[in-house]
């Protein structure tokens, strides 16, 4: 008896979600490929619906209790360190972009320092938020707009509240912008290099690799800080033009 290996669209979405859930649990690519192919085989044989037969992808992935990769904890700590560097770079770049255009120095206000420390605190919680963010990937553009809106809206408001305060320190805009850009791009490039599409790919049992959407998601999250910085810089420059 031959098996139909081409599941319907609904089952394909379910199988993609299962791959993402197992990736979030730090299961190896080979084990993910095996688990996905097993479900595909059962669905093809039984003709049943994935959700009815296996429940939610999140619950099923957890119920398999597959072994996790050995370097999972170190990877998580690396993400936190790179994210903190990225945040410092993002804040430095957004603070220096307008003074750079006008040829002024950057005054680091107390409000800015408070924001940087606050954002760093949030970023250290990022690995815990990442699964939720990944599960909301189908609303990716909504997330980008919301995050961009929060950064582009809240930061200028908080900064304006401390506008009357004296600057703690004054720094030339160009070096600050260059160092910030380095801090921003460095972690993104490092992550891209070390977490490429060839890094532990999902392997179809008995053959080569499969198309892996979960790795694409990882690639997108690598660059989310850079995307955020570009949005905030553009908004800051537009705001500056409106004000002047």
């Amino acid at each position, binding site marked *: 008896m031959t098996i139909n290996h081409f599941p319907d669209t609904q089952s394909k979405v379910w199988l993609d979600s299962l791959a993402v859930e197992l990736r979030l649990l730090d299961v190896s690519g080979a084990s993910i490929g095996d688990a996905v192919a097993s479900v595909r*085989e059962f669905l093809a044989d*039984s003709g049943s619906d994935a959700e009815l037969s296996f429940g939610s992808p999140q619950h099923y992935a957890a119920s398999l209790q597959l072994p996790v990769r050995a370097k999972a904890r170190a990877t998580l700590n690396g993400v936190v360190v790179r994210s903190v560097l990225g945040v410092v770079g993002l804040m430095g770049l957004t603070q220096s972009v307008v003074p750079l255009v006008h040829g002024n120095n950057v005054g680091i206000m107390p409000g800015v320092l408070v924001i940087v420390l606050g954002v760093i605190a949030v970023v250290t919680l990022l690995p815990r938020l990442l699964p939720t963010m990944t599960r909301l990937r189908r609303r990716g553009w909504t997330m980008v707009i919301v995050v961009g809106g929060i950064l582009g809206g809240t930061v200028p408001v908080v900064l304006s509240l401390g506008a009357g305060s004296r600057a703690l320190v004054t720094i030339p805009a160009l070096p600050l912008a260059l160092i910030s850009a380095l801090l921003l791009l460095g972690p993104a490039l490092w992550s891209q290099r070390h977490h490429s599409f060839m890094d532990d790919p999902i392997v179809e049992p008995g053959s080569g690799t499969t198309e892996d959407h979960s790795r694409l998601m990882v690639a997108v999250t690598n660059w989310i800080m850079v995307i955020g910085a570009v949005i905030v810089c553009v908004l800051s420059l537009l705001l500056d033009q409106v004000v002047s």
Partner: protein
Amino acid sequence: MSVTAWSSDWIRAALGLCVLRTLEPGPTYGYALASALEVGGFGAIKGGTLYPLLTRFELAGWIEAEWRPGTGGPGRKYFALTELGRQELDEQSAQWQAFTGTVQNYQQRYETEKGSATS
């Protein structure tokens, strides 16, 4: 023929032993296992119940899996009992016999006492 809807707790307790027993004659794949259990009177066993159990048995070394090639894909994953799995099956089978015997004796004792009291 009507199929008895067994308590899910009972199914969960007996499923592992029955899966090992189904694999005793020789290797088979997921859906064939589920079908054999359904024909045996357990009702429809969902993939979400069966595969985590098979994964656990594989990690315990009681069964081993092998992908057999099919047309246009990886084919089917066949599960086979290992020597350790056969030992486990014998052990669990003996324990299950003893347990069901205990339950049966316990019930009969009270049935007998109830019969004596009413007569």
